[in-house]
């Protein structure tokens, strides 16, 4: 059985987090971290550190509550 190839992990650094701090009002930025079904991408795919991934999760959930982002799809 052929082994599935994983997408290469993006570079993780503090600089990346500082420049891209998630905010629930910045919808276009948050959309980059959603899958086609509206699921939040994992830390491996998003490139955020642990703390910033939590901030991303919170920002997306706030945006979903305000109907800025969809829950599904």
């Amino acid at each position: 059985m052929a082994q599935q190839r994983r997408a290469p992990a993006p570079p993780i650094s503090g600089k990346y987090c500082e420049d891209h701090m998630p905010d629930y009002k910045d919808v276009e930025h948050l959309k980059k971290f959603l899958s086609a079904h509206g699921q939040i991408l994992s830390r491996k795919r998003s490139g955020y550190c642990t703390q910033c991934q939590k901030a991303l999760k919170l920002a997306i959930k706030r945006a979903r509550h305000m109907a800025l982002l969809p829950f599904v799809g």
Partner: protein
Amino acid sequence: MKTKIYESMVLLDNALVREDWKKAKATVTDTLTKYGASIVTCRRYDEKKLAYQIKGKNRGTFVMCYFTLEKDTMAEIRREWELNEKVLRSLILRVEEVPATEHELAAAENNADFVVPAPPPDDMVEEEEPIIDPVPLDEIMVPDLNDVDLDSKA
């Protein structure tokens, strides 16, 4: 109790905004002042299509307010907005400071010549970005592989 700064985003029904913008804005500001909050800035944030239907509405107007509150009346403010049928959604967050740009944007809205654009109909279809036409096949230059001299490269 120490004074804290809060940010609130309120999603209003477009039907209320169509009637009168000042009246619509007052539904937000009156509630805040009623429960002892002093408003720093309050402005129309945006009017846009919602990601999902709320109470049968497809579009709504967002109002952004920054206010300070000394009393412990946050629960009452949340409850009042929750019970108001014209308020579709509300979000109140604690912030460290009011962004510098917020004062300018709020001041621009308070000018006499500022006119709030009327919200479009609820079932309006937004124009999608035009797709750039791909390069016609005739214009793509494909080299003839018979002419390529492979031996010279080796």
